């Protein structure tokens, strides 16, 4: 989540109140204070609220929340007369362009830092790492309109930001730090996006890097904004948030003709919401008037139109308002979560455990009663543990992770016994005897089902011991079964048996093959069993 740096002095100037009040109240608008430093605080905001990614935006919200200034701000936009042309061949590369002219900025170091912070947070939350939207701000007085957004050949050269010599677009991807970071976004295109002025000077190579020519400094008076991307809605979210933040800091906004359409408008949208629906969703008794007052506190424009209807004017920067309930949440925040009268509803319901859980609880009770300790191993494992060390053939239904995070965890378990033997290995230095069991989900060709396994390791562990346990478990589960000699290679020939239920193999038990014992670096006899609990489910029709 984006962490925004809020310098106290700048924040106090913009908000008109002291830092203590702000620090106390900022978590209540939906934020986590990460650090309180001598000259600033770092605050984490939610990714759906890009309007809080700048000091200017936080000041605007705090003014409302503290009652210093409520209702919606007006953001007038006048035409700049400047035009921007978009090359149609960008359609397959990076089709959308948003722009604006921002005049009379007074950029202190703090204001520049806030702007850069906003840009970075927007790149992350709205731009999806610059793929969906990338933002460029330029000192407009260094270039000459009109501007051209084009698909340029890869050998076109210019001086990128923070460099002194010219580089081709191709070279930037290979050598410039930002070029290397974001090369994956454009590498597959034949031509690259480029923004130039009337004299063919390069402003920007979106979404990679701006030119050194238009670098914004404290001396910058007028800004040209470019936002390019693959989604027009997201592009405009970025444009609106940057323009309104700078407007709140005192700048004036002018529109740019992008292929004949003036951008941006910064006009609010209007939603008429029902006070009754809000009351029912939140469970608080509010009149339409009171609701409107809460919304003004949250910097919406809001008027009660009737007993039930509230006309809400939504500022252009509130990209998170998709649905009426999004507006109701802001009513709840303004009302104060601490002021809700928490209560339980009166409907009567009865609880009921899931049959699979009831079955597993029963098996746990039986095995704990037989003296076994429960273990809860991971369900992710690898072929070595699950099959190779057990001397078994891989189950054809085993599911493999496409992008495992380690060699230890590459597949989903189809059996539990190998994990339990691995648990013995983890505990090889602990006193014997050890009698352990594990029960839980296994997966075979997308089907989730349950197995239970038990092991006993000590100097006298043998076939008779585990036969007695398997027999007790089957009897207590109330499952009639038969026994046949087994050919499971994990066990010693002549000391292994299959459990047959309704004519189908449901489990296996016996003495582990010493080669298996050694594969898990153990040195005492181990007797073990495993039962597929689908045989129980089948009989109880869970």
């Amino acid at each position: 989540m984006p962490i925004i740096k809020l310098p106290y002095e700048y924040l106090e100037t913009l908000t008109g109140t002291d830092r203590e009040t702000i620090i106390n109240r900022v978590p209540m608008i939906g934020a986590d204070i990460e650090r309180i430093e001598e000259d600033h605080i770092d605050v984490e905001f939610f990714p759906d609220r890009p309007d809080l990614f700048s000091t200017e935006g936080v000041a605007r919200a705090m003014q409302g929340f503290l009652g210093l200034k409520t209702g919606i701000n007006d953001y007038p936009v006048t035409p700049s007369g400047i035009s921007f042309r978009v090359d149609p061949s960008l359609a397959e590369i990076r089709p959308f362009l948003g722009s604006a002219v921002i005049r009379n900025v007074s950029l202190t170091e703090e204001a520049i830092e806030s702007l850069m912070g906003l840009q970075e947070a927007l790149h992350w939350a709205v731009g999806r790492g610059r793929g969906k939207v990338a933002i460029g701000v330029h000192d407009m007085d260094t270039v000459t309109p009109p501007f051209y957004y084009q698909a340029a050949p890869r050998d076109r050269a210019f001086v990128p930001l923070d460099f002194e010599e010219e580089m081709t677009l191709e070279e930037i991807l290979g050598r410039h730090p930002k070029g290397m970071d974001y090369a994956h976004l454009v590498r597959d295109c034949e031509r690259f996006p480029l923004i130039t002025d009337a004299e063919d000077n390069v402003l920007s190579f979106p979404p990679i890097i701006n030119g050194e020519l238009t670098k914004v400094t404290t001396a910058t008076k007028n800004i040209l904004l470019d936002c390019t991307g693959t989604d027009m809605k997201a592009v405009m979210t970025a444009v609106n948030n940057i323009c309104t933040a700078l407007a709140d800091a005192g700048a004036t906004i002018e529109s740019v003709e992008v292929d004949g359409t003036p951008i941006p408008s910064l006009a609010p949208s209007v939603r008429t919401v029902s006070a009754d629906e809000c009351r029912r969703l939140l469970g608080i008794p509010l009149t339409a008037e009171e609701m409107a007052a809460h919304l003004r506190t949250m910097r919406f424009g809001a008027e009660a139109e009737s007993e039930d209807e509230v006309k809400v004017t939504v500022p252009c920067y509130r990209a998170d308002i998709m649905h009426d309930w999004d507006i109701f949440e802001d009513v709840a925040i303004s009302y104060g979560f601490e002021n809700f009268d928490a209560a339980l509803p009166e409907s009567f319901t009865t609880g009921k455990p899931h049959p699979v859980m009831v079955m597993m609880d029963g098996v746990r009770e039986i095995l704990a009663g037989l003296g076994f300790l429960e273990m809860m191993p991971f369900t992710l494992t690898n072929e070595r543990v699950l099959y190779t060390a057990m001397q078994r053939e891989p189950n054809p239904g085993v599911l493999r992770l496409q992008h495992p995070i380690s060699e230890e965890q590459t597949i989903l378990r189809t059996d539990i016994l190998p994990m339990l033997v691995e648990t013995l290995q983890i505990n090889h230095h602990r006193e014997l005897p050890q009698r352990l069991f594990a029960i839980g989900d296994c997966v075979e060709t997308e089907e989730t089902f349950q197995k239970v396994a038990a092991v006993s390791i000590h100097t006298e562990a043998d076939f008779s011991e585990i036969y007695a346990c398997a027999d007790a478990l089957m009897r207590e589960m109330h499952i009639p079964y038969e026994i046949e000699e087994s050919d499971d290679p994990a066990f010693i020939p002549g000391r292994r048996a299959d459990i047959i239920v309704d004519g189908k193999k449901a489990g296996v038990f016996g003495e582990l093959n010493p080669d298996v014992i050694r594969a898990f670096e153990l040195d005492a006899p181990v007797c073990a069993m495993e039962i597929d609990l689908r045989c129980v489910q089948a009989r109880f029709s869970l």
Partner: protein
Amino acid sequence: MAELTYNEKRLMVVLNAIKKATPEVIAGELNTTAAAVVQFAHLCADKGIASLDRTVTVSYSLTTEGEQYATLGLPERQVYTSFRNETSMKDLQAHPLSRIAIGWMKKKGWVAIEKGQVKKTGDAPEGADEVALRDPAASREGILELVKRGLAEETETTTYTIAITETGKALVEAGLDLREETGTLTREQILSGDWKDLNLRRYSVDKLPKRIVPGKIHPYQRLINEMRSVLLEMGFIEMYGDVVQSSFWNFDALFQPQDHPAREMQDTFYLDSTTPLPENWEAVRDIHEHGGTTSSVGWGGTWMPAKAQTNVLRTHTTGLSIQYLKDHPADPVKAFCIGRVYRREAIDPTHTPEFEQLEGIVMDKDVSFRHLMGFLKEFYGRMGFEDVRFRPAYFPYTEPSVEPEVYVDGLGWVELGGAGIFREEVTDPWGVKYPVLAWGLGVSRVAMLKMGLRDLRQLYRSDVDWIRDTPMMQGGRD
């Protein structure tokens, strides 16, 4: 004084008669072994009624090799007598014992060696070692020398003298109950009532028993079961579902946009398989693209069915909740589930790629955000967290959203899970008519708080001794 055992009493009776004796003598009287007598005497000595004196004597005897030399003489003596006054080193080396003998002859000063010639220096008088070789007791200096050379060995003999003390005498003279002791009672003794007249062996209560451990359900499973009980008591029905889910149920049905970062491969385990879309998938598509029939504007763009078909290991159990609501459209619904979920994270003390998540949903005609807070307070209260407070939060599939915090002594306010009302974009495609309150929390986080666990790996790769040592009736509800 502690009670005497039957054997100790018998020893005291014999001692009282003979006052002082070796264990061997007493063993004859008691018809037992000398070792047993020493053991009884130790116990009596501890009680101050007898004394036990230990004497260690050391004796020496020749080894087999030593016995040989006792007859033939030490190797250096044998070689010394094999030549007259002088001989060449070369000739001397022909003698079979020369390897041992030459060194010793030189060391004892019997010969001088110069330019390959060996010359006797005197008449080589008999040394203490040779005296001891004839009679091991004759020279202490000599025998120690032989022990060093491995020609003799030392044997320690311990002898005991047992005597009765004045306290002991008084005790015996006061009279002792000499009936034989009984260990385990027999069936006959119990039925006949004879046990009343028996001298029952007494057990020391100071001696700890051998430690045994009962079979146990895992401490973490016990915590999970405790949470299940809380929710069952509160009238919730338990859900259970597959670990493998389609992206449709795991993400799309929850209104997660198809380009959401949580859906990327670095956060989610994808499988190389697909699941066909369920009936009514078009409603989910419409919601994503333009908000469907709700007041939502949707995410815009084009929703891709192929992306929704890809299977994943479930990243939460919320996909089960929405499927449950689809199958149970009538109100009221109160359901929960505790299940394993998967996130693509490397294993470290506070992260595991799989962990348990608890999730509860309530769908009812008149439920509201206020009731969600009521459920959260009730649930956390029953889990032992009395103080609960709420803060605004953001989750992609709830609106409004809330983050509950509980107060934990020593830690302060701790975030514990997330909650909210399912967005209409989530519930509308399935004809859910009323608001759905939902909350979830990481069960392992509760385990860390309630069991004082520092390392989550302990839950899944448990130390047997941790399970053995964790009391079953601990960390329960108060």
